[in-house]
C-alpha cells in the first residue's frame, strides 16, 4: 500500500506535463480530457475515501499553483471528486470495477462533479442556464475523460492464479 501512496504522487507530475503540453493538441472544439482526474479516481478507488480526499486536495493545490488559476478552485473540486471516487473503494469488488465499464462510469461521474463545482466557483456567468453549464462544462469533458480511461481498463494487471 505504501508504494501506491508514493506512485500516486510521482505519477502526478509527468501527467501534469502531458496535460499542459500535449492534451491541448487533442482538444475537440475546446473540450479537453482531464488525465489528472483518471489518476485521482484510480488511486481513490484503490486506497479509500480519506486518501482520495487528501489526494484530490493535494492535486488541486499543485495544479492551481503551477497553472496560475484561482488558488483553491481546483483544490475544492478535486477534493470532492476524490471523496466521491473513494466511495467506490471496495476490496472485494475493486478488480471487477477496474476491468469493466463501471470504471468509465465512475470517472464520468467524478469528472462531472469536478468540472461543475470548478465552473461554479470560478464565477461563471450566472445568466447561462444550468443545463447548458452542465452539458458544456461537465458532460462533454467528462465523456472525453472517461473515454481516455480505457487505458486503465486495458492495461490493468490481471491477478495470476498460483
Amino acid at each position, binding site marked *: 500500500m505504501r508504494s501506491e501512496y508514493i506512485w500516486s504522487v510521482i505519477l502526478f507530475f509527468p501527467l501534469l506535463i502531458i496535460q499542459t503540453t500535449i492534451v491541448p493538441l487533442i482538444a475537440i472544439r475546446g473540450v479537453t480530457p482531464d488525465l489528472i482526474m483518471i489518476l485521482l479516481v484510480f488511486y481513490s478507488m484503490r486506497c479509500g475515501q480519506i486518501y482520495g480526499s487528501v489526494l484530490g486536495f493535494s492535486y488541486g493545490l*499543485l495544479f492551481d499553483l503551477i497553472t*496560475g488559476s484561482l488558488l483553491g478552485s481546483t483544490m475544492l473540486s478535486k477534493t470532492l471528486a476524490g471523496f466521491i471516487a473513494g466511495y467506490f473503494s471496495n476490496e472485494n469488488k475493486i478488480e471487477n470495477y477496474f476491468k469493466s465499464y463501471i470504471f468509465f462510469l465512475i470517472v464520468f461521474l467524478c469528472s462531472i462533479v469536478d468540472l461543475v463545482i470548478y465552473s461554479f466557483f470560478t464565477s*461563471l456567468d450566472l445568466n447561462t442556464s444550468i443545463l447548458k453549464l452542465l452539458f458544456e462544462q461537465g458532460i462533454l469533458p467528462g465523456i472525453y475523460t472517461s473515454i481516455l480511461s480505457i487505458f486503465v481498463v486495458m492495461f490493468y494487471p490481471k491477478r495470476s492464479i498460483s
Partner: protein
Amino acid sequence: MFRFFSSIWENFKEYIILVILLTISLVTMSLSQNPAARKVKSLAFGSFSAFTSVISDMVNISGLKSENSNLRKLNAELMLQVSELRKYGIENSELKGLLGLKDTSMLPLLAGTVISKSLSRSQSTFTLNIGKKDGVASGMPVLNDHGLVGIVNSTSDNFSIVRTLKNLDLKLTVKDERSRVEGIMKWNGNDLVMIDIPKTYDIEPGDRIITSELSSIIDIPIPIGSVIGLSKVETGIFNEVRINPFVDFIRTEHVFVIAIVENKIENGEQMNFYLRKKLEINK
C-alpha cells in the same frame, strides 16, 4: 466524553476530513490574491515550467517544417505590402512633421514561446518561456501576428503566466473599428462578448473589434476579433455583441509581449489595475 468523540470520529472520519479540506480550500480561495500566495505561485510555476519547456520544444519540432513553409509564403506577401507601405510611411512622416505629431509606431516587442496551456473554459492561461529577466512584467499585453492573445498576469525570473482573452478575470475596453462604438469586452464561458451596448448603436456582424485608447490596461489599438452576431434582448435597451477572436488559442505557439505597462493616472489615482496591485505589494 472521550468515547463520544472517539465514536464520532470512527463513524464519520471521512466526512470530518472532507469538511476540513473543503474549508481550507475556501479559505485559500479568499486568500489567493495575498502577496505571499502570489509569491508561492510564482515560485511553483517557475520551477515546473522548466520541465514543460523541454516537452513543449519536442512537441513543437514536428510542426516546424509546415510552419516554415507557411511563414516563407507570408514573408513574401508581407514584403510586397511593406514596400507599398514604405511609400505611404514616408509621406506620413512628412505630414506628421508638418503637424508636429510624435511617432508612436515603434513598440518594444519581446518574443516568447508558449510552453504550456491551461485551457479551462473559465480560466484559460498560457505559460511563456520569458520572464522578469527578459523584461516581462505584469500588465503587459501579449499578441501574435493575428491579434491580442491576453495580458501577462504573473511572472517569475524566467517564465510568465498570461491570462488569455478566454479568461473570466480579464475584461477590456474595446471599440468597433468602423463605427468607433466603445464597450467592455469579457469572456462569459462560451463567447467573447461586448456587454451593455445600447440597441441604437451602430454595430454590425463583420465589424472589426480592436482595443480602445480609453483602456487603462492597453491603449494601443490591437485587433481582437470580428463581430459574429448580436444577442438581441427583447426587453431592456442593451444588446450583447458576440465576438470571434482572430487568435486561435489552441494552435498559438509563438507570441510577442509588448514591453510597456500603461501608466494612467487620473485625479491622483492609478487607473491601471496591474500597476495598482504592484504598488500595493511594494507598500
